[in-house]
């Protein structure tokens, strides 16, 4: 009988850039950019930015981040979201590599609320996957928005110890459509990663 155990993960390694995030620096085109924005997208346009650090607080210059999110109405661009209405060209996915100082940024829209398995609304959030040399398997975390009242009743934040929730919450810069969230792969303010 054939063994259908899953294929194990291996690190993305230090050399993924020319294949996955070339951004004009190599003889290869980008399948994805750091933007989910499409001409017809509705909702509040925001930039999410920050830096990625290792356990010594040193910037990680070779991480790759991917986001997956609902549109401003809380609908996913996937037919498995049975509620979804035809939603033009919004895809809800973006990818970026960190720069030499560990900086990342995404251009996107603030997602709407998505139901939890009991049908109750979750606070607006973006699912984030983190890949890097030294990470044998990518890790999942979430980006919440510091100015959302729904965070207080979000069922996923509720399973995170209160003193660690700030690692999941991007805070808005005063007067700008910019949210900041740093990621710490290890250490005192280690980012919460989920076992999904």
């Amino acid at each position, binding site marked *: 009988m054939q063994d259908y155990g899953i294929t194990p993960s291996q690190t993305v390694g230090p050399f993924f850039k020319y*294949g996955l995030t070339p951004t004009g620096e190599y003889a290869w085109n980008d399948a994805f950019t750091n933007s989910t924005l499409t001409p017809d997208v509705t909702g509040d346009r925001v930039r999410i930015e920050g830096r990625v650090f290792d356990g010594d607080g040193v910037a990680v210059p070779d991480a790759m981040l991917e986001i997956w999110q609902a549109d401003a109405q809380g609908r996913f661009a996937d037919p*498995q979201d049975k509620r979804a209405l035809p939603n033009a060209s919004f895809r809800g996915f973006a990818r970026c590599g960190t720069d030499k100082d560990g900086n990342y940024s995404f251009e996107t829209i603030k997602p709407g609320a998505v139901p939890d398995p009991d049908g109750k609304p979750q606070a607006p959030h973006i699912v984030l996957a983190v890949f890097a040399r030294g990470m044998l398997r990518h890790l999942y975390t979430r980006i919440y928005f510091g100015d959302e009242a729904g965070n207080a009743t979000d069922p996923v934040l509720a399973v995170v110890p209160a003193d660690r929730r700030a690692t999941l919450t991007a805070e808005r810069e005063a007067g700008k459509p910019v949210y900041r969230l740093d990621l710490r792969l290890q250490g005192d303010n280690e980012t919460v990663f989920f076992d999904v």
Partner: protein
Amino acid sequence: MTFIYPVDSNTAHPLPLSPEYKSSIKRAPNKPLIPMRHTLSELTGPVYGHETVREGDNDLTTQHTGEPLGERIIVHGHVRDEDGRGVPNSLVEIWQANSCGRYVHVRDQHPAPLDPNFTGAGRTVSDASGYYRFVTIKPGAYPWGNHHNAWRPAHIHLSVFGHSFVTRLVTQMYFPADPLFPFDPIFNSVPDEKARARMVSSFDLENTQPEWALCYRFDIVLRGKNATPMENH
């Protein structure tokens, strides 16, 4: 079809901290991952079809004016779920070193030649049955700084999407019977021997093309089971 993604399947993956692989020491979380129920955010995922891929993107030997040096190979297989069903329309991206073991990446400066006719990146989309196929050059082994006389076994990096964001997989495909396997901390970061074997392609004589290219088969199994399996499945 509704899929479920038992978290137990993740035991096939390496642990985040694998001290023999030195780069993992400062980049693995110290705290345990926090369990949570899958919501629609985890159960859905990006859908990318043929519009993402250009004609010829799955042939790494025809991207430049001349042919790359090295051993031309075919790498093909199926993307499957845990029930063995093909995963259709899944984007598969690959990147690799050239036949001398040199990456085009600016940070790879080890003394092996670059090949002006080889970038080493490709992508394709699995067909309705989950089948995918690349034509490329067999990558060389290369040295790295993890420990004294450390060499990576020849491998091709693969990135695969699947049915949801939690099926996302980045892995490496190895070649059969590589003598470097026992010494490679990345390959051996996978604790289970049978799971390690699933990262090794098999030589495929039947699909080897006479006078042209050897063929290797590599099936990729992603997370995902039918939520309501047939009784005698």
